[in-house]
Structure formats: C-alpha cells, structure tokens
C-alpha cells in the first residue's frame, strides 16, 4: 500500500480562471467519475481525505484527493500538488479552485474536502461537486454562519443531502450524536439518502480522530471493495496517533499544537487524551489566541474555560489576541496575558517546571506562527 506520506515528488498547482473549455472539461470529468466523495462536517476532514486517497491509491484505483484550509493540496497518481492561490488569498474563488481542479485532473474517484464556512457556500459546493457519497465525521460549533447550535448545523448539512446517494456520520461524542442524528435522519428519509451512522466503541472514543478508521470501513463497503487490510488499518491508526503526539520544543519541554482545532468539544477530548497518555502529572499550560474577527468562536469557548478554571491539572492559561475581559475573569488567577509577559521567559519557566504546553483555539494567526516558530526553532549557540 502506498500512502500519501510516501510521495516524494511535489509540485505546484496554480489556481486559474475558468475558460469555456475548462468548464466543459469540468462537466465531462465530473459526469464520468464513478464516485464523488465529499468530506464535510467540522474536525478531521483533511486527515480523512488523505486517508481515503492513501487507501484507494494504494489499491491502484484512479483517485484524486483534495484538501483545503491554510495548506491546500491535491493528491493525484502518487504526486502531491501544493495549491497556489496567488498573492492575495482573498481572490481565490470556490469555482476556480474546485471546478478548475476537476477540469485539469481526470480521475475515476474524486474525494474533496468541503471547504465551506457558510450555508450558502455549502450549497454551492454541493452544486459544483454533486457528491454521490457525503461523509460527515462530526459536527462541532465552529463557524456561526453554519449554525449557532448543533441542531442548526445539522439542518445546514442535512438540507444539502438532496442529491446524495449515501451519507456517513460518525460522531464519537454521545450527547452531540443524540442531537444531530434525528435531524440528519429526517433529511435522509425526505431525500431518499442511505444514512449510515457509525458507533465508535467507547474504549476507542477517547482517541481523537479514531472514527477515521470506521468511516473508511463503511466507505469501502459502500464502494463494494474489500475491508481494510491489517496493514492499511495500522497505517491509518499510526497517522491518527502521530497527529496528536507531543513534540519536544526547542526549550526542552513537550508541547502539542491544537491551535488548528477550533472547537471546544475536540479540544476537550484532546486534552483528556493527552492527560491520560502523555502529561503524566506535569503542570499544563494552555496558550489560547483569540481573533477579533471570530467573536463567535470566542463565545463557543467560554464553557471550556469554565471547566479549565476548576481543572487542577491546568496551571496557567496564557491569553492572546482579543480575548475580552470575560474569559480573563472566568480564569481568575490562572490567566496570564500574552501582551504583558515575555514569552521567552515564560517558555523557560515552563521548561524549569517540567511543564506541558498546549496551543489552543486560533492557529491561523501571525502571533501563533511566531509562537510555533519559537517552539520549533533549533537553539542557536551563544556568540
């Protein structure tokens, strides 16, 4: 089996405007594809697309995988293409990027990550991609434009199942699942979609991302392919574990970067998993950065910080960005303000205390890039 990690040839794919010929080729390639798989929902979409590509490509099927976000990529016939959105990322359009890729790369199976952040763009992606199979690994409160509650989010994703043949839902958190399933079922029965709900065994549900294995099994079943081999299973599990594994910082202490996990539920699961498997009684420091343009996200995190206040294993929470007084007030003595402290001294202190650092909330910011750079740089010898 050849996973994407085995790829050594990397190249750039530049987003371009769509000509009439491009649109015709996009239509042709889309209609000739045997399967169009759309990975929607909240957490773990990119990893799942890579897993699906890895397994299907390893079985010598003609598959194209596309992941989005801050590091968009295409996986096609063993080559990883890094997507170049041009000098101004705001100028990329969903149509140029997605229809353009389908026009330029012919494949029997397309597996795309749903890059939507609003009800409208979610509908547009469905119009553009026309998925046969939609996978919703989970739904978490993240973008208020997709819904301000789990129920609203379920309506957003349920309403666009209209032309889908199969939908897979694999939420590992029981109370989220109970709220979402009835809504998805309602839409599935209305549109005649075969909805497959995956039950993650409780013993495994503490590993963030483990649902990817079960989703793959279900997907292979829908496609009429043999189940995961022992080797494929191990490859996927190893990747899931690797993604949450602590790294050693350049200061010497261990840290985990959860800053791209933008929802409180996943952050809580990951925190519990880390406490159980890696923290080993060390004092935990959480560095949380809040974006002024993401007040919805800040609001969603308030219950998380209320729990953190009462969690004795968390020593301090370092707050950065537009965190507002409310979160500072909730945390009380545990709160440190990033703008008032020297980060170098703080990291040295964490190291002296044999602490464990967790980066949380907003990963795609200049400040968090700086922090990541500080944590991962190679120590320079003193002059």
């Amino acid at each position, binding site marked *: 089996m050849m996973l994407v990690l085995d790829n050594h040839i990397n190249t750039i794919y530049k987003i371009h405007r*769509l000509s009439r010929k491009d*649109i015709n080729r*996009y239509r042709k390639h889309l209609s000739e594809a045997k399967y169009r798989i759309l990975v929607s929902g909240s957490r773990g979409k990119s990893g799942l697309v890579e897993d699906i590509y890895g397994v299907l490509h390893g079985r010598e099927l003609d598959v194209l995988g596309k992941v989005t976000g801050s590091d968009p990529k295409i996986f096609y016939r063993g080559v990883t293409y890094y997507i170049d959105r041009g000098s101004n990322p705001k100028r990329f*359009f*969903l*149509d140029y990027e997605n*229809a353009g890729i389908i026009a330029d790369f012919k494949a029997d199976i397309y597996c795309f990550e749903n890059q939507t952040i609003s*009800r*409208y*763009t*979610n*509908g*547009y992606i469905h*119009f*553009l991609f026309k998925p046969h199979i939609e996978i919703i690994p989970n739904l978490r409160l993240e973008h208020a434009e997709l819904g301000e509650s789990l129920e*609203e989010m379920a*309506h*957003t994703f*349920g*309403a*666009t199942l*209209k032309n889908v043949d199969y939908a897979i839902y694999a939420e590992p958190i029981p109370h989220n699942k109970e709220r979402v399933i009835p809504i998805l079922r309602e839409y599935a029965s209305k549109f005649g979609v075969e909805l497959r709900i995956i039950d993650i065994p409780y013993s495994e549900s503490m590993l963030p991302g483990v649902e990817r294995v079960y989703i793959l099994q279900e997907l292979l079943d829908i496609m009429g392919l043999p189940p995961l081999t022992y080797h494929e299973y191990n490859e996927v599990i190893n990747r899931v574990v690797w993604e949450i594994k602590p790294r050693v910082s350049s200061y010497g202490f261990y840290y985990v970067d959860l800053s791209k996990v933008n929802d409180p539920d996943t952050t809580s699961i990951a925190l519990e998993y880390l406490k159980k498997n890696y923290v080993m009684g060390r004092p935990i420091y959480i560095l949380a950065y809040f974006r002024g343009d993401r007040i919805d996200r800040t609001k969603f995190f308030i219950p998380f910080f209320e729990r953190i206040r009462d969690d004795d294993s968390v020593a301090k929470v370092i707050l950065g960005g537009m965190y507002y007084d409310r979160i500072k007030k909730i945390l009380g003595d545990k709160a440190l303000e990033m703008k008032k402290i020297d980060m170098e001294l703080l990291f040295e202190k964490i190291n002296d205390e044999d602490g464990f650092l967790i980066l949380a909330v907003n990963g795609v910011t200049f400040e968090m890039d700086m922090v990541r750079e500080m944590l991962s740089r190679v120590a320079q010898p003193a002059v």
Partner: protein
Amino acid sequence: MVDIIKYSLILSVGFILGYFYYTYFKISPGGVLATPFLVLYTLEDPSIFVIFVLAFVSSIFAIDFFVRRFLLYGRRLFYLALLVSLVISAVLYLLLNPTFSTVFFSIIAGIIAYNSHKELMGGTDYIKITTVWFSEFILLYIFGFIIYSIY
C-alpha cells in the same frame, strides 16, 4: 414631518418583523432592508409592484443561467443580479410610467432575487422561500396600509 413618522414606523416594524421571521424560519429571502422598503414604495404606488415582480423574475432567471452556465457564485452573482434588476426596472419604468419612482427601488428585485438564490443553494425549497417572503411582505403591507389610512 408626518411622512417621516409613518415611514419610520413602517420601517421599524419591518425590521422587527424581519428579525422574528429570521429567528423563526432561519431564512431571510428579503434581506434586512429590501422588503420594508418595497412595502413603502408599493404603498406609494401599488402599480410598481408589477415592475418589481417582472424585474425579480428576470433577475432569478439571469442568476440561474449564469450559475449553471458559468458556475458563478457569491459577489459576482450579486452584482449581476443588481445590474439585471436595474436595467429591467428602468425599461419597465419607461413603459409603464408609474407615478412614483426612485432609483433604490430598481435594485430591490435584484437584492431579493440574490437572497432567494442563496437560500435555495442552502437547501431551502422554492415553496418555503416564496411563502416566507410573501407572508412577511403581506403582513407588513397590511400594517403599512393601516398606518397610511390613519395619517
């Protein structure tokens, strides 16, 4: 002075009604401003509602055509809807010659057509979009009619 009061009253009730409609139905085909203003203009001259309907239908067809043929979406489509609405309304103004005219009216059909398209893309069906929008319009129109009768 009286005019300002009645316009403000109708607009205020329109905004409050719009907010409750959005909270309850979770869709807003009329947007925030378009429906209350359309009610105001229709109260001034009911015949311009015909212009609105024709401009709206034209905008909806234009949006549908450009989405299907050129995969357009978002802001580009919004501008297109405004342009179609403006041109069709202007032509109909010349043909029908209503007693009341204002430029802002000419783009209302485009705004509502684009918002309806967004709701449609989001998975809401035509019937729900039409029913929700029309009931909001009718309720506000009745309220406006009463206000106009009083003043």
